[in-house]
């Protein structure tokens, strides 16, 4: 269980950011469901829940998700069900139960780069950018490639509506358990984005073209690293990955 010295209900993102950079033990609070399982000592917990950051909206080109949007909202949202073959909504629907999904937030999952994230895997297979308050807009891939979690505030998740076909598959020992592996593949005009998550490390993505496709699943998987934890061995994950990727490709071909 974490301890927290002071709780700040931020009145603006600027106030949240100023507080965040003041002390290394100041921290942005998301849903706090995962945070409470650790034992961090937090100086000031910065709460963004008063800043209307809970939204899913679209404009001509993009769908935008606010960082305080809960997984339950993502799961039931009409826009997310209708776009990208519903994989963004689908990627969160087996995470524990709806009561937990009503608590956990999109921003915390993405900003913290959690390794178990099913949601990040789906986002990675699409053309997804994130906006940091100071760091500006960058691709999700670029954000994840940097080892550290920056002292910054995630203000938006932006998914380009470019008509990609997409599929998402997950392997779990039982429903609502953590994923042993998950995989999302999108296809736009023969360019395939293959994302694999719960490796158990952070999700990764590889891009390949149609003509090199079927022979290349093996090569794509060989380039990815798979780790061992209490749920499965790296070797097992690697075998599962080939199957899930192939099934996703069948759906988006």
């Amino acid at each position: 269980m974490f301890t927290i010295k002071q709780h700040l209900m931020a009145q603006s993102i600027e106030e949240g950011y100023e507080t965040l950079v003041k002390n290394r033990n100041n921290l942005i609070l998301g849903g706090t469901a995962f945070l409470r399982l650790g034992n961090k000592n937090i100086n000031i917990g910065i709460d963004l829940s008063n800043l209307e950051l809970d939204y899913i909206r679209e404009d001509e080109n993009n769908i935008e998700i606010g960082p305080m949007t809960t997984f339950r909202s993502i799961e039931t949202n009409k826009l997310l069900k209708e776009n990208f073959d519903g994989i963004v909504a689908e990627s969160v629907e087996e995470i524990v139960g709806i009561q937990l999904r009503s608590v956990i937030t999109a921003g915390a999952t993405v900003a913290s780069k959690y390794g178990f994230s099913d949601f990040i895997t789906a986002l990675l297979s699409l053309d997804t950018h994130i906006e940091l308050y100071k760091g500006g807009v960058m691709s999700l891939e670029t954000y994840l490639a940097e080892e550290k979690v920056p002292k910054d505030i995630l203000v938006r998740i932006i998914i380009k509506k470019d008509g990609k076909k997409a599929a998402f598959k997950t392997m779990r020992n039982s429903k609502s358990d953590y994923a042993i592996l998950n995989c999302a593949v999108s296809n736009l005009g023969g360019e395939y984005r293959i994302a694999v998550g719960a490796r158990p490390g952070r999700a990764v993505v590889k891009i390949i073209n149609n003509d090199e496709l079927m022979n290349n699943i093996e090569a794509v998987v060989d380039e990815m690293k798979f780790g061992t934890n209490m749920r499965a061995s790296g070797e097992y994950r690697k075998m599962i990955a080939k199957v899930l990727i192939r099934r996703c490709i069948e759906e988006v071909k």
Partner: protein
Amino acid sequence: MEIKLKINGISKDITIKEGEYLQSALKRLGFLNVRKGCETGSCGLCTVLLDGKPTLSCSTLAVRGIKKEITTLEGESVEVAKFAEVLTDEGADQCGYCSPGFTLTVIAMKRELESPTTDEIKHYLTGNLCRCTGYMGQLRAVKKYMEVK
């Protein structure tokens, strides 16, 4: 810090510790059926309704309950009595420890889903753990209560 929570339609003032969760705040206010089970956000025992949505009170900071309608079992006495009757009829109630959270989730489901399939019911109720009954009796009771086959 001093906060105001609206629980079952009644405003209550409560002093909470920094970083305190809703479950323990509610317990101090005397809502003893808001149970604590697994402490990891997996079991659903501590469920309350926040603006009508089933939510884990053990994983929701008490401050996030400000300006929201918090509903515990006491706030749903009519529906609770209806469901309790079908649940006991099916012999699906044993120790009763999981019942408050489970019952609130079922009530919320009835309001949210229109004639759900068995799979939709199971999906909605995943994350409510009961160690006594093996779920079959509960599922029969839920279907009766939801008036679906």
